[in-house]
């Protein structure tokens, strides 16, 4: 466990669990309004749902995304295609069914796609001018949705069972969940990267990137690759995609945001203990079994009196660790104090600013935390990766924790 800069006294800070009230098992709620994608003026076109007014959005059409999902939950955000970072989302606000708007993120975008090949070379930092390499999406590339300025798809899709509870003598209590999805595609050399954020009706956010397009075709020895094509003459070189996201959380506004890490030590024993670490200063952290983090607003509380937060889970990473000159790959989560010039996790294009995220961590006290999430995927090619290469996905989860006092259904 690497917890380099937080006060040692906090490392074993135990927290008594005071569980929030269980969600009331009420009667089936009436069917919500059909999902609606806002149109040109960004106005809601849904019927039957009256979400409370959110603060005036900071963007106008066609950059405003304002979506009410069938359960009445509403997501509102702005998008922008930046020259360097590509698709960037700002002012991300969630309004639970019958609830008030809660700001979650001030902004989020990719912060690097680092692709080192297994033989040691080449090693790419794929974020150059991502925005200049956006792929024009055809109608079929944005099923059921709306294309914004050719490069951005705004759509909704099912996310399977929101819940299913059997009840003796009664119909099952169940609902299909739905999510708003915002994505763009970028052509970076042989890869097409699908850069996607899903905003679900229960307040969760799933950022993920899919790599498709083509394999590089780089030939290597059998110790660094896998034979593709006929026979054993071509060994396709294995490689890793280390994808970094920058997330400027502003949970319920800019003030009072604190980042906590949760652990549950007790392996090999019958009991597990909840352990909370508060990051009072900039920090680097690595993933561990059952470990998660949250950004909590220390002042805002839900109707149960619990502090509102969004939780970050990063359990699907291949945890690539690079050589000394790639120290930015050596942690899975970085927490840094907001600085406008810190934009990319490596090859940061800002004179007078540190070059990579590991160097942003200087022990500064955190009053406005920015989170950097690093998710690795190790790609060992297979015959099925023949053109067009099937999409392989990597990402993580951001889940509300006590933003609502009950299941937001």
């Amino acid at each position: 466990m690497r917890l380099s800069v937080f006060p040692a006294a906090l490392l074993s800070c135990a927290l008594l669990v005071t569980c929030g009230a269980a969600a009331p098992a009420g009667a089936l709620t009436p069917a919500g309004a059909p999902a609606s994608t806002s149109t040109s003026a960004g106005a809601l076109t849904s019927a039957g749902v009256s979400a409370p007014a959110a603060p005036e959005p900071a963007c106008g059409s066609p950059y405003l995304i304002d979506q009410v999902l069938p359960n009445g939950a509403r997501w509102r955000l702005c998008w922008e295609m930046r020259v360097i970072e590509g698709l960037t989302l700002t002012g991300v606000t969630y309004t639970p069914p019958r609830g008030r708007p809660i700001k979650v993120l001030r902004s989020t975008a990719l912060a690097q796609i680092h692709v080192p090949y297994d033989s040691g070379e080449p090693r790419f930092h794929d974020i150059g001018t991502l925005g200049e390499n956006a792929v024009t999406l055809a109608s079929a590339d944005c099923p059921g949705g709306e294309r914004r300025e050719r490069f951005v798809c705004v759509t909704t899709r099912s996310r399977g069972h929101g819940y299913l509870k059997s009840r003796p003598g009664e119909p099952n209590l169940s609902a299909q969940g739905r999510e708003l999805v915002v994505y763009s595609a970028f052509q970076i050399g042989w890869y097409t990267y699908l850069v996607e954020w899903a905003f679900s009706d229960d307040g969760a956010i799933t950022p993920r990137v899919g790599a498709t397009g083509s394999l590089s075709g780089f030939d290597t020895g059998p110790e660094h690759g896998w034979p593709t094509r006929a026979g054993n003459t071509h060994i396709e070189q294995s490689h890793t995609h280390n994808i970094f996201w920058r997330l400027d959380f502003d949970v319920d506004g800019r003030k009072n945001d604190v980042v906590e890490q949760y652990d549950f030590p007790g392996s090999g024993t019958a009991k597990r203990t909840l352990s909370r670490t508060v990051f009072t200063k900039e920090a680097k952290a690595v993933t561990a079994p059952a470990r998660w983090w949250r950004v909590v607003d220390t002042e805002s509380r839900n109707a149960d009196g619990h502090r509102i937060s969004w939780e970050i889970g990063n359990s699907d990473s291949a945890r690539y660790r690079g050589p000394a000159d790639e120290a930015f790959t050596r942690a899975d989560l970085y927490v840094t104090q907001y600085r406008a010039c810190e934009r990319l996790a490596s090859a940061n294009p800002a004179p007078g600013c540190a070059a990579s995220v590991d160097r942003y961590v200087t022990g500064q006290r955190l009053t406005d935390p920015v989170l950097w999430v690093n998710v690795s995927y190790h790609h060992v090619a297979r015959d099925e990766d023949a053109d067009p290469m099937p999409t392989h996905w990597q990402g993580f989860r951001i889940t509300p924790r006590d933003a609502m006092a009950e299941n937001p259904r």
Partner: protein
Amino acid sequence: MGWGRIVMVLAGAGAMALAGSLFLVSGEQGPQAARSPLRTPSPADPLTGEEISRASEIASATLRRRMTTGQVELLYIERGDDKAAEDRRRADAYIYDYAANRFIVRTVDLAEGRVVAERAGRGAQPPPSRAEGERAAELLLADRAHGGRIRAAYARAAGRPLRSASDLGLRALVYTPRPAHRGAGACATHRCVRLLVRLPDATWPDTTRIVVDLSAEKILTLEGR
């Protein structure tokens, strides 16, 4: 997929110079520019084409002579989104000074019509602009060994000879030397790029050992791992 069309502007009474002052012109913007210039933009909207043109002009006002001679290049304009000024319409102009190998970011406040901040330094490299990528490709094609290999691969794939760099699908990435690399030490201070080159048959010849030193206008070959 378009970059903002870049036009040369006559500097003073001088003749059209290849490396004239560069302005990103409204009307044909890349994807990052707002396409709805008719109304006043909201604070978080992308920059409009008009704002990009104006920011380019303001940011390069004191650099025109050196831009004409190709010493300084305006790479692109990005919307400034510093939290400390989020109610302001600001633009960051990314500029590279080839004469001094210095990277400059000038922040323009569009309402005030002036540069309100400048940061400059050596070492950090902004991503290459499209114009730089094309220049790198021209240098590569002019190289007898590496250029010849690309031309031959193109002719095989297309069934006809390569006419110019614009026949290739290009993607330039900044190259930063790694401790294990030999042959590209100059790139510690120079502006260097690697090129990914797509041929008409959607294949990518291996160009990963080739580095284009744009500062010295030289082709370097990487050695070592």
